[in-house]
């Protein structure tokens, strides 16, 4: 198990380094930063001054090494738009996005695992069809449109929930539902297919034959095995949700990382953009690493493979 964990950890570290490389060069190859910082109508001398001042005239490799060294210590310089240290704003906004992500993944799992299990218990029943319809509709629904519809229904017509801002826990309900529906279909489909496969296996027949209660068979024996790939998928989906939060947070003006990213992108505030892309990628890498470990622990065959 230790060798497995070390191997996976090394891989995660390598991926993180490559991601930082992409993060850095993405910005520097897409545009001339000195021109973008100087703004429209800047004189050539001003652009040259900025280039010298910030060291953009040095080789990119040197700039990358310096940026990475500071990033490793959690320093990303000052935001060009907010005029405060990037790390401070990012840390201030991160809890909002993490709260949103946690609610969303809980709603998604709470909806899709029971539905997937029930659907697999009775394939082709009305319940199975309902679950499939929910999944198919969810996969075709543009997430921002679904968010606007939720706003119209629960915020305006019924007036039950707030639709903008992040002041109270109630502000998280609609965004979390919108984000959860984006992740639920994949989790439900995987739970259903995993359960179908497990339920057809010999040890389940044995468990039933020796007279175990159906619920015990279903939840103690079958779900335990079917849930292994779901753990990995849930980690991946949580990572995607953090990326997708840019859309949902912008719709609901929820003051998290995603909204910050959108503001930063609109104002050419590339130090903030780089920091957020890197941070979200790192969270994703850590999540998938933990999911790998959990899988290896739950299923020894994966450790050997």
């Amino acid at each position, binding site marked *: 198990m230790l060798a497995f964990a070390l191997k996976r950890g090394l891989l995660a570290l390598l991926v993180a380094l490559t*991601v930082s490389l992409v993060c850095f060069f993405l910005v520097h190859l897409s545009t001339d930063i000195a021109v973008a910082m100087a703004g429209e109508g800047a004189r050539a001398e001003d652009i040259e001054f900025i280039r010298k001042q910030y060291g953009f005239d040095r080789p990119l490799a040197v700039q990358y090494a310096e940026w990475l060294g500071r990033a490793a210590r959690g320093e990303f310089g000052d935001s060009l738009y907010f005029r405060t240290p990037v790390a401070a704003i990012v840390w201030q906004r991160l809890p909002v996005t993490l709260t949103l992500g946690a609610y969303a993944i809980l709603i998604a799992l709470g909806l899709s695992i029971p539905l997937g299990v029930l659907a697999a218990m009775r394939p082709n029943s009305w319940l199975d069809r309902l679950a499939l319809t929910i999944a198919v509709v969810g996969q075709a629904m543009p997430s921002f449109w679904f968010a606007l519809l939720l706003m119209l229904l629960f915020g305006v017509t019924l007036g039950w929930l707030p639709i903008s801002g992040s002041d109270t826990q109630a502000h998280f309900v609609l965004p979390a539902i919108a984000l959860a529906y984006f992740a639920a279909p994949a989790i439900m489909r995987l739970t259903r297919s995993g359960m179908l496969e497990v339920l057809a296996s010999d040890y389940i027949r044995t468990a039933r034959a020796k007279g175990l209660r159906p619920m015990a068979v279903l939840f103690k024996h079958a779900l335990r095995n079917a849930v292994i790939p779901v753990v990995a998928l849930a980690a991946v989906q949580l990572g995607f949700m953090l990326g997708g939060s840019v859309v949902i947070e912008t719709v609901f003006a929820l003051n998290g990382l995603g909204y910050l990213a959108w503001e930063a992108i609109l104002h050419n505030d590339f130090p903030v953009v780089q920091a957020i*892309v890197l941070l979200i990628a790192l969270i994703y890498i850590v999540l998938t690493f933990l999911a790998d470990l959990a899988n290896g622990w739950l299923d020894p065959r994966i450790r050997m493979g």
Partner: protein
Amino acid sequence: MAAVLAPDEPIAPTPAALMRRRALGHAGLLIGAGVLAAIILMAFAAPLIAPHDPYAQDLGRRLIPPLWHDAGDWAHPLGTDMLGRDYLSRLIYGSRISLLIGFSVMLLSGLIGTALGITAGYFGGKVDLVVTYFITVRLALPAILVALAVVALVGSSLWLVILVLSLLRWDRFAVVMRSATLQVRGLDYVQAAKAVGCSTPRIILGEILPNVANSLVVVATLEMAAAILLEAALSFLGLGVQPPLPSWGLMISEAKSYMFFSAWLITIPGAALFALVLAINLLGDGVRDVTEPEGRN
């Protein structure tokens, strides 16, 4: 299709005939293909069927509601937007943008992902490790954020959106093509082709590709749908297709501040997006069911 039902049908029908029969009995596939065909037709015939110029503004006739409201007007069946442009005409022309993005991104990202996936699956070993590593790195990058950032830095245009989405969405093609190739590369006909001295490109194009084509079609539909949704999201956030082009995502974005009084301005283009993506997904699910019936569950 009478031949399929004829009584003198041979006892063991050919695989193609079986597949045709399954396709014709698959409701999801038929509905998906029908709706998609109708939208494609609408996109091609846009100048013929659109009642007005989608760009023509008429500030005296702004925010006319659709026909099902009391104040509806037959001249504008789906009403007009905040600049008095005919909403039906904009909706019809908008299908062109969604389809253009969907097909272009599907082709371009499909080319990149399929090439990488088949190479990794066929050669295995170190090549496979490198490609798998690329896929892992790509998955760690938040696609929509990176797309937003690049489009904002470079300056948005339709072609840039297509290029950026293609460079970001090849991963699923690579993953599926890699495992499909792994499954067929050890089979007898591939070994036979090797034994008689076929060149590697010939084996890949002539033996491997046709035999992984089913999975390729399924991923292609999924990716086309994903690209359409991503473009809509980018345009909605103001960093995709630029006004006054009638992209459905952009139409929703422009109507956002009017939606509390004129909800149809967001429900109509959203419903169009939903219908198009649903049709493509139903078609993809149908193709998967028809080509590999044993994997239906």
